[in-house]
């Protein structure tokens, strides 16, 4: 019986904000704005590879 592994990647993200956040030394502004902008564009990268797999 194969032991089930916990998936690393969450749907909709290539590089989750939590991972990106660790690369930023300090945030002086509103983190939620930065997070939204990051996730909004990161999701396009996610869509790219999954749509290649599904639609093309």
């Amino acid at each position, binding site marked *: 019986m*194969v032991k089930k592994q916990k998936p690393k990647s969450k749907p909709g993200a290539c590089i989750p904000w939590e991972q990106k956040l660790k690369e930023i030394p300090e945030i002086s502004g509103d983190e939620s704005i930065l997070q939204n902008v990051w996730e909004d564009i990161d999701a396009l990268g996610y869509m790219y590879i999954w749509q290649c797999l599904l639609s093309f």
Partner: protein
Amino acid sequence: MVYVWTGLTQAIGLKYYGVPGIDVPPNTGFQYKEPPPEKSFMRPDEYDPLIENPTGYLFNIWLPRVSAEVSPIGEPTSYRNNLSFLKGGMAMMKYFTAFGTQNALLRSESGTVSAISGILKAPFDILADKLRGYIGLTMDLFERPDKVLAACEALMPHLTHIALSGADPDKNVPVGFWMHRGCVPFISHEHFNKFYWPTLKPIIQQIWAHGHQVLFYAEGDWNAHLRSFAELPDQAIVYHVDKADIFEAHRTIGNKFCISGGIPNVLLGFGTPDEVRDYCRKVIDGVAKDGGYIMDASAIIQNDAKVENIQAMTDFTREYGVY
């Protein structure tokens, strides 16, 4: 026929994509080319990395294998590699943003509404189509069945996410679900019940929980599995019939779901308008008396369909298919 655009597939250099006019005759639809099992895009010992991180696997291992442009991880990058991501990304945006305009043109110029929004494929079919290949996967069902099941489960949340992200926000049309080789006789009933259905059914249920129907585009003959599909909530799907017995489908699940299709493409291509009208009458009489039927060809209409036959199907349905 308008179905997929080679601007993107050529920008990425997709090896599995048979382009009309290059790989296949110019007046035919595109074709998928499946490599022999020993050259499958996913190797049999790569289930673990796929299961652990499907998105990472696709970017790092799968894409360089299916693309003639993308450099494998660890190898030098190139002008063509860099360009493929730029062109591919821009091409994809162009492709999807064109849908709104094209749908509006369909409506205004031919009185035709769009039929689907978004895309879904079953985890099992994804493994067979683009990763292990059909032959490789059927071997895996016997040699590493637990890995196959775990891979299907790992794909589920991602396929659900993509389906929902493309679904019609107004909920007027269903998510398109393309059904390939997960049915008898491609696989056994046992394998369908162990791999295909348990990793598909929860996806459909989740999409329905968000208020979206799914169009089961049952390519080939899926009547062996109608009782499984009947487990889904009433109205959760529209069931499209290709080569199967549409009257059996109606008898088995017609009380729960709308049925569509069932007019043979060969008839539309090589029959006469009178034969088309007769067949449409038979289907309407047998399937549509109580409503819940969408007139359509069995499969996607190709260039070989005669215009007069499509006209006969349309006109007859508008005249005879009323309540």
